[in-house]
Every structure is written in C-alpha cells, then in structure tokens.
C-alpha cells in the first residue's frame, strides 16, 4: 500500500481484545471436537479428554460474553455453533451398544413397569372382565363361540369340534420338527398377539378407550376357548397348553395395555403441563414398557414355537408356565432397584 501522510487514529475495541485473548482456546476446542466427530473418542489422549469439558465451558462463557459486548455476526454464529457442537460432544452418550441394551433391560424397563402400577391393575381388570364374560357366554351357549372368535383365529375349532380332534389336532399335536417350529417362531413377528399388544399401546393416543375395549375383547376370546374345551373335559389340559407361552404373552399384552392407558391418562389429565408435553413425559415410561413388551412377545414366540408341542405332559406345561410367571414377577419387582444410571 502506498505511503499515506494522513493522520492515523488508534482505536481498540473491547470485543477485538476479548477475541484475541480467547481465540486460541476456541481453536483448540474446535480441533478436539473435529477429531472426536471424525475418528471417535479413542483418537484423543487422556489429557485432551480431560481438557474437553473445560474448553467447552470456557467457550460457553465466551458466547455469553460475546452476546453482550460483540456485534461481529460471524464471531457470534461461530461461537453458537462451537458451543452446540461442544455440548453434543460433552453431553452426548458415549456408551457401547451392549451397555445401552443392558441398561434398558436391567434398569429402565422394570422401573418403568413399576411406575405403571394402577394402569396395570386396570388393564388386568379389563382382561379379566372379558375373560369371565366370554367364559360365561360360551359356557351357556356354544353358538356364541363363532360370534366371538374370528374364523381365522379359531382355525377350524368351534362348536362342531370333538374331544379327539382337539386332543390330536391342537393340545397334543406332535412336535412338527425344528423347521416348522422355527417357522412358527419367525411368523411370531407378524403374529396376531404382537399386533394386539402394539395396537393396545398406540390406541392409548385415543384417550385409552379403544385400549380398554381391545383388552376386554382379548379376554373374551380366551374365555370362549376355555369354555369350549371345558365342555369336552379338556379345561385343565387347555390351560396347561396355553400357559407355556400364554403367561408371557398375556403379561406382555397387559403391559402394552397399561402403557396405552398411561398415554391416554396423560392426554386426559395433563396436569401442570400441556397435553403434548405431558404425553412426552409419561410417554417415555409408556414407550419403555411397550418396547420391553415387544421383547416379551419374542420370548413368547420362542416358547410357543419351540416348546409348546415338545412338552406333551400337562403337569410339565404348568411347571414351565409357572416358572416363567415367577421369573417375570421377580424380574419386574426386583430388577433395577438400586439406582446406577
């Protein structure tokens, strides 16, 4: 630039001085975050990891100061982005998949279930009500069976079935072998009960009424089946047959229903929060219950496909059903009592 003989004034800006003093720290943080984002935690040394939160806090305080003293738009936006990326780096989860899932099943799921005491009670009552009604209706008049149970589910069973048919075709049908058993297991994925469970949960969004109706209906079908078998002297055998996977499956349906009722309740009675906020707060527990219940359906699918026909004795079936029930109860009451997460 050409020499200039005009007088020169010196001007120091607080914001410029501030920037000169802090810029090195920001650059260091930017470098650390960049490496963390690209190559992961292991790229940083222990000292660098220790300095990360310190640099982040100083960047956040820089942002607060800059907002009050600086009008440099580029600087402000840079600091906002740096603080946000630092926030994600410092507060983001850094957990292996295994630990995350372990945490869910040992802590979050059983805890969420314990949160839902009343809802579970109501869901159970709804199921029981349906069960008693179905049992009484079909017990009095078997023609109700065809009305209550859709033909797809009845699978040929009905008022016309004989004792022998039910014995050989259903309760004590021979084990079909690994292939078909695995087939049933796979078809669990789209199975009726899983769908019912998921519907129970999601219909909670409609204030919970459809959830209750669905639960009552499930009970109704079960009661109808029991009455049908009772009339042929197979009541106990039927209960044993269904208990193997039914204990797990019905518990899961009940939990899904309870989760749906939680969401319905949160929408009906929002309390101090707005309805959407409250649904999110309660919904977190409800979703954890529903998600855990999906895995219970998976367990039920394995039991149904693998073991139901393999174990051909009613006492043993009750033993398996009772054991699974006791295990679930112990799990829900005991797991995750000590806070760790």
């Amino acid at each position, binding site marked *: 630039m050409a020499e200039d003989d*005009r007088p*020169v*004034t*010196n*001007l*120091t800006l607080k*914001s*410029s001085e501030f920037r000169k003093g802090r810029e090195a720290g920001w*650059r260091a943080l930017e470098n650390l975050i960049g490496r963390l984002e690209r190559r*992961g935690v292991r790229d940083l040394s222990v000292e660098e990891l220790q300095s990360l939160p310190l640099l982040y806090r100083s960047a*956040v305080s820089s*942002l607060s100061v800059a907002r009050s*003293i*600086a*009008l*440099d*738009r*580029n*600087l402000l*936006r*840079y600091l*906002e*982005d740096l*603080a*946000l*990326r630092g*926030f*994600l*780096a410092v*507060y*983001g*989860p850094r*957990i*292996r*998949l295994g*630990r*995350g*899932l372990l*945490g*869910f099943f040992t802590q*979050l799921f059983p805890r969420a279930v314990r949160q839902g005491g009343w809802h579970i009670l109501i869901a159970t009552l709804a199921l029981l009500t349906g069960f008693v009604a179905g049992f009484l209706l079909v017990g009095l008049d078997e023609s109700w069976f065809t009305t209550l149970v859709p033909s*797809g589910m009845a699978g040929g069973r009905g008022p016309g079935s004989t004792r022998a048919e039910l014995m050989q075709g259903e309760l004590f049908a021979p084990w079909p072998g690994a*292939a078909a058993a*695995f087939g049933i297991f*796979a078809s669990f*994925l*789209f199975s009726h009960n899983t*769908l019912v469970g*998921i519907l129970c*949960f999601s219909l909670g969004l409609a204030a919970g009424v459809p959830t209750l109706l669905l639960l009552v209906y499930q009970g109704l079908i079960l009661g109808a089946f029991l009455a049908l078998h009772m009339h042929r002297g197979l009541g106990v055998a039927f209960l044993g047959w269904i208990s193997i996977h039914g204990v797990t499956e019905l518990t899961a349906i009940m939990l899904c229903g309870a989760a749906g009722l939680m969401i319905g309740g949160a929408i009906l009675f929002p309390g101090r929060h707005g309805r*959407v906020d409250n649904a*999110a*707060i309660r*919904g*977190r527990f409800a*979703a*954890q219950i*529903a*998600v855990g219940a*999906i895995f219970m359906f998976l367990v039920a699918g394995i039991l149904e496909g693998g073991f139901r026909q393999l174990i051909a004795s009613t006492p043993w079936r009750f033993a398996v059903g009772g054991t699974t029930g006791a295990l679930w109860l112990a799990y829900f009451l005991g797991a995750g009592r000590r806070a760790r997460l």
Partner: protein
Amino acid sequence: MAKYRDASEFLEGKRSGLRQITSPEGVVLPVELASYGERAAAYLIDMAIWLGITLLTGLIAALILRGPALIYVLLIMVFTAVLIRNLYFIGFELAWQGATPGKRVLGLRVVDRRGGPLQPGAVVARNLTREIEIYMPLGLMLTPFSGPGVWGRLAILAWLAIFLLLPLFTHYRLRGGDLIAGTMVIALPKRVLLGDLVEAKLRYRFSEPQLAAYGAFELQVLEELLRARDTADSRRLRREVCEKICRKIGWTTPVPDGETMLFLRDFYTAERAYLEREQLFGKPRADKHHAEAG
C-alpha cells in the same frame, strides 16, 4: 419499522426450522431442525446399508446350509433382519452421539428436546418405536398368506401415512419415536471463524452524530459485504454502499475509487466501536430506525 428481526434473517432468509435449547450451563443455543427431506435421505442410506448386511447374512447362511434349505435361509434372514436393524440404529446412535452413518453423511444429530444429555433410554425407545411405526404395518401389508382383507390393508395404509407424515405436522418435526423419547433431530452446522474486520489504525475519522445514523442491523449487513469475495459485482456494490453511507452521514469530501474498501473498513470499525460501547452502556441500537422508535 424494520422488516427483518435481525441481520441473519435478512441475509439468510427466514429459517422456519429454528428452535432453541438451553444447555445445562443455562445458555440458550439456537438449533436448526433437520428438514423432512434430509431425514428421509439419511433413513434411506441407513436402510440401504441394512439391506446390504441382511442380504450378506442370507448369502452366508445359504453357503453354509447349501442344498434344498431355501426356506431356512429365508427364515434366518427374516429374523436377523429385525435384529440387525435395531442393533444398527441403537448401536450407532449410542456410540456416535446421536448419529447413524446416514445421519452423519447428511450432518444430522439426535438431541434431547429440552437440552439435557441424550439418555441411552431415549435412544433405545426412539428406535424401537420404529418397529411400530413402519416395520409392523409394512410386514403385515406384505404378508402373502392369510393377509388382512381390503379394509385391513386400507387401515394399515392410513396407519403408515400418519406416522410417515407426522414430522410435517409437529412443531419440532417429530417422528412418533421422537415424540415419545423426548428427542428431536437437528442439522449440525459447521461455520468457520473468519478474521476480525476491525482495523487497528484508522485513516478516516467519524463523529458521533455520524455514527448514530446506523444500528446493529446495518453494521452486520456491511460486515457481510466486506467479507464477500472480491468480484466485479461486489466491488460495484461496495462502491454503491460507500456513496450511500456518505450521503446519509453527510460526508462531503469525495472518497477516491481506490479507497472504497479502506473507507468502508474504517467506517465499519468506528461504527462497531460506537455501537458496542452504546450497547455496553445499556443503549443497544437495533437498526437505523432506532431514533424514530425512541
């Protein structure tokens, strides 16, 4: 009155996806929500990877089993597909702090809606919910044997549509899983820190009444102009702005053509020094309408 809220809105357009979170330190940070298209693209990338892995496991299973066991291979694939997609999403979002490979490509992140730390439970919940939102209905829809009837299929279609379009109708662009897990998906910006435009030594001097003609809005628009690349266009624009400023503040000595940049930078420095001082004294000036507004 001013048409724009601030210089950023004027320069970058109104951003409908702008939201705020409050960090645990109590500082409000602006975040930009990921757009529907970005999220769809990220999801498609992840699904392509998932499909690849699933087909690979099927291929390996087929090679190991060989022979007439096609049905086994299919069954193994159906089962592993479910396992893989859940472990994939949850695993990556936990390990990569809220990003899957697809999200990473598009620069998206999952964050807590209230600005707290992203809980592992939330990650698990938001991803497993996808089973309910998409895979279950899709699986039912595609069941070849004893599938749902026409009305059933219509109901499933409606279900799918509701969940797929949900992000378009919620304030935070939430998917069903986000709604329940208390999360949202944001686009991660990466802005670089450019040099300070402040000049240490000023050739031009401006008086206080001259500087009082403008506010922060004009200052920051000027900043953008000074940072623009040096092209014929920007040179012309700078010249125009320079003349406009001269007229506005009553600068009578003509500024030579070669000194446009020098004049503007000096003016920027003086103006910023003045405005920052005023702001520090509790008299912030938003824009040139400041005086009228009183």
